[in-house]
């Protein structure tokens, strides 16, 4: 409506051609059919869909997302320790509909970059620009025995039914039991996530099942994120946590209830949580958006356009090459920046040069949290870190800030 007003004004005043130039006139003529499709209604995709509509309501936005509800991974580790419930993390898409985003609760079956089309069921949807934010897929086949056992060996790395099941397994375990958790090698979704999870489970054991133990096999040499802070936290839980770095889970045997690592260690468990290695969501892999590693998508650091396919932008966890963590906060920032770039490009304008930021909180018990914050800028067309800061220690104040963050960012994506 606002844009129509402006357009009519330009037209009526005869200024349109003068201001917009020839290129502008072309996009003006094409405006009627400007269509953006967004694949994935998670942290990146939901934000991008909303912000395109906010920025230029004359653009038609269709969001493809198989899930009817949005469930927040952030705060899902608190559910495992029984201090938060999944229903408080379950959000809906009504706000996006109010912004005029057309939502189809179906998965995109395939992308046809040459035809600028996305196949959904029997339909083929055309786009002028496509935004792909499919998150991660879990690589079961990387751990022997996992693919066959994936319904019972829980990852809970996509918040949802598995989160609730894992919480039940942990909470119904007898005191004196052993929980084994495995951390995949980088790059994976949410670098501090496994350690937040370990802290919350260890807090639960310490307070409710003090004779029990959590063994963490980490494929990485050391704690990947907020290292010093998590080390201090693990010390507080020394009686209940056994952290073993540089040990990669290689095999799982559900009959023997045993995990084997690449150093040959075998450990029996009562409850197991395997976080498998990851790569970009299948749709990105199948559309040849991933690079030589066959796992992640390389993009332009300003517009998030794929370096491999024109008119297709990739955001969120599926991307690689930017010095940013795979976090919801970064996916949200990318969603907003990418939306701005897509609107600019569709209007024949130069996209503004903007960089993301990352504010990442980790809870370590029922009241306290720690945080890492990164700000970035663009230098020679590339994202470069300006600074990283950590909170000095765990505190209630930081935990309270994380709650304010979640109220803000959920609203920013879906409100």
């Amino acid at each position, binding site marked *: 409506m606002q844009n129509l007003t402006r357009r009519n004004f330009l037209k009526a005043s005869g200024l349109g051609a003068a201001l917009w130039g020839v290129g502008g006139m072309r996009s003006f003529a094409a405006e009627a059919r400007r269509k953006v499709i967004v694949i994935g209604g998670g942290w990146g995709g939901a934000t991008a869909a909303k912000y395109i509509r906010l920025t230029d309501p004359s653009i038609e936005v269709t969001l493809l997302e198989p899930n009817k509800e949005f469930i927040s991974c952030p705060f899902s580790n608190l559910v495992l320790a029984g201090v*938060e419930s999944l229903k408080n993390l*379950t959000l809906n898409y*009504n706000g996006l509909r109010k912004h005029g985003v057309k939502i189809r609760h179906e998965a995109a079956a395939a992308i046809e970059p040459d035809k600028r089309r996305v196949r959904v069921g029997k339909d083929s949807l055309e786009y002028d620009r496509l935004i792909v934010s499919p998150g991660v897929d879990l690589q079961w086949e990387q751990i022997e025995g996992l693919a066959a056992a994936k319904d019972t060996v829980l990852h809970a790395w996509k918040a949802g039914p598995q989160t609730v099941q894992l919480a039940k397994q942990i909470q119904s375990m007898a005191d004196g039991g052993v929980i084994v958790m495995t951390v995949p090698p980088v790059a994976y979704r949410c670098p501090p996530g496994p350690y937040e999870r370990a802290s919350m489970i260890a807090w639960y054991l310490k307070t409710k099942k003090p004779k029990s133990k959590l063994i963490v096999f980490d494929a990485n040499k050391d704690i990947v994120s907020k290292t010093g802070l998590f080390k201090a936290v693990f010390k507080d839980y020394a009686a209940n946590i056994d952290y073993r770095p540089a040990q990669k889970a290689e095999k799982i045997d559900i009959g023997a209830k045993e995990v084997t690592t690449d150093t040959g260690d075998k450990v029996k468990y009562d409850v197991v949580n395997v976080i498998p290695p990851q790569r970009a969501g299948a749709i990105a892999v199948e559309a040849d958006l991933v690079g030589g590693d066959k796992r992640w998508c390389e993009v332009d650091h300003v517009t998030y356009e794929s370096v491999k396919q024109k008119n297709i932008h990739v955001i969120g966890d599926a991307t690689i090459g930017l010095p940013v963590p795979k976090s919801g906060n970064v996916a*949200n920032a990318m969603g907003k920046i990418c939306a701005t770039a897509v609107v600019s490009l569709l209007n024949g304008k130069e996209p503004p040069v903007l960089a993301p930021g990352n504010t990442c909180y980790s809870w370590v018990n029922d009241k306290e949290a720690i945080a890492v*914050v990164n700000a*970035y800028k663009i230098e020679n067309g590339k994202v470069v870190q300006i600074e990283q800061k950590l909170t000095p220690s765990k505190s209630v104040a930081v935990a309270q800030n994380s709650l304010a963050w979640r109220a803000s960012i959920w*609203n920013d994506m879906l409100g």
Partner: protein
Amino acid sequence: MGKSLTPFRRKDAVPHEKLFPLPLRERPVLSAVEGVRVRGVVGRSHPHQSIGLRLSLWTSFALIGFMLAAFAAGAGPLDSPGAQKSLVCSACHGFAGNSPGNTMPILAGINAAYFKKAIKDYAEGKRTSPEMEPYAKYVMHFGVDDIAGYFAAQKKQPAKVKADPKAISRGATLATQCVQCHGASGEGDTDKVIPALRGQAAGFVQAQLALFKENKRKPEDAVLDENKKRILKGLDDNDFADLREVC
């Protein structure tokens, strides 16, 4: 209106204020919805009234004004350089600087000079905040003037957590010492670069009072510093919890 302001949440979701209350003198949350705060000068109302009724006239005028202004400008709300450069801020501070969270300050309508001073202080580590320091450098890098101008031009949506009337009345008594500088209704003083407190996020105000008291945050002006110290000397954390409710 009369509907939830967070329509994307389940109706049976428990507000985080209830699950993880702010420390000290647990705040009775009468509002059923997270992020909907009704308190202090903004309006006290019966819990069964609709949110639409709860909004004061002042708020309604502000909203209408905002909508008219946006329409008259004829531009999308995100077309200006200031809006674009502050895109990352909304993750914590809310859309257009209207933070719905308890401890994140509302930036909408902020005095631009005060915003710039705060950013400079954070960037230089004079005001310590691990969360703000990197972002303050981001703001300096991308253009503090554009961003200050953007937030200053946004209309503040009133904070709306329903507070305990007793806390409000205790807080109001204590606040008589604040009005000298911050204005009779906490509106601040643009010329003297004194921030408005009216409608500010309660948890944020409480945290800042504690920082001043612990001497972790300090006004540069020696007289102001003395005044603040004198006022805060007699107050404890419970008083700060009451004071947060009068904003």
